[in-house]
């Protein structure tokens, strides 16, 4: 018995088979786009725009300086990792490494007041 379901199945299968195997055009991938950086189709990312304004290494240093140089702390950032998660800081009394909320003073350096800068 030719039910409605059978008619639909036959129609869609026959229609689909109009597309012959091997007749599909090859995949055309977009140019390499960094992960997580979305662009509209057909529009390439503007190369170098970000790096021209804020060189990558300056961003964490600038952020760390802004964070550490709060009023009253008197703390300087001597070095920051690329991600900004690790800093070497100093103030008038000590020098050490700030990472993950922990301050580790460099050997023979006094440990006074740095945590207030984190």
């Amino acid at each position, binding site marked *: 018995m030719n039910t*409605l*379901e059978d*008619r*639909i*199945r*036959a*129609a*869609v*299968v*026959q*229609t*689909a*088979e*109009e*597309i012959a*195997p091997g007749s*599909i*055009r090859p*995949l*055309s*991938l*977009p140019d390499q*786009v960094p*992960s*997580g950086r*979305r662009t509209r*189709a057909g529009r390439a990312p503007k190369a170098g725009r970000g790096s021209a304004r804020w060189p990558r290494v300056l961003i964490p240093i600038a952020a760390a300086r802004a964070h550490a140089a709060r009023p009253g702390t008197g703390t300087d950032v001597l070095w920051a990792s690329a991600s900004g998660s690790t800093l070497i800081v100093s103030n008038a009394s000590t020098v050490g490494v700030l990472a993950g909320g922990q301050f580790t003073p460099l050997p023979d350096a006094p440990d006074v007041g740095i945590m207030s800068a984190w």
Partner: protein
Amino acid sequence: VTALYEAHALGLVRLAYVMLGGRAAAEDVVQEAFGGLYRRWDQLSDADRALQYVCSPVLNGCRSALRRRRAQDIQAAHQPAAVSAETAALASEERREVMRALRRLPDRQREVLVLRFYLDQPETAVAQAMGISQSTVRSTAHRALAALGRLLEETR
């Protein structure tokens, strides 16, 4: 991504072609879906499920293409793929009637019927691909079959 495309492009283009009725549009939708997969490849939590990640964009792409085309006469939208005269002659009037009626259904009803009857997907897979519940799939399929039956009756 290229290997996945080579393995599954035919099935997905055919699916989009059944939905859209136009070969070029179907290929564009599938190309865009794989382009999106390529851009997000590093963020996939499970690369083995990449095919699932590309199915939904294909369905979404079909919906978008149909929306763009809505102003046109939907019955005139079917642009048969380039086939031989012999093949075209063999295409039955019955099939054309069913496809015309299918394309007059609302998007969701058409998708449910195509996924169910073309891909032979169970309700759970249809629900997953469309992002709706199984009960919605069941009720939508019921309404779609009733509507399709009415549309086919009208053409007789």
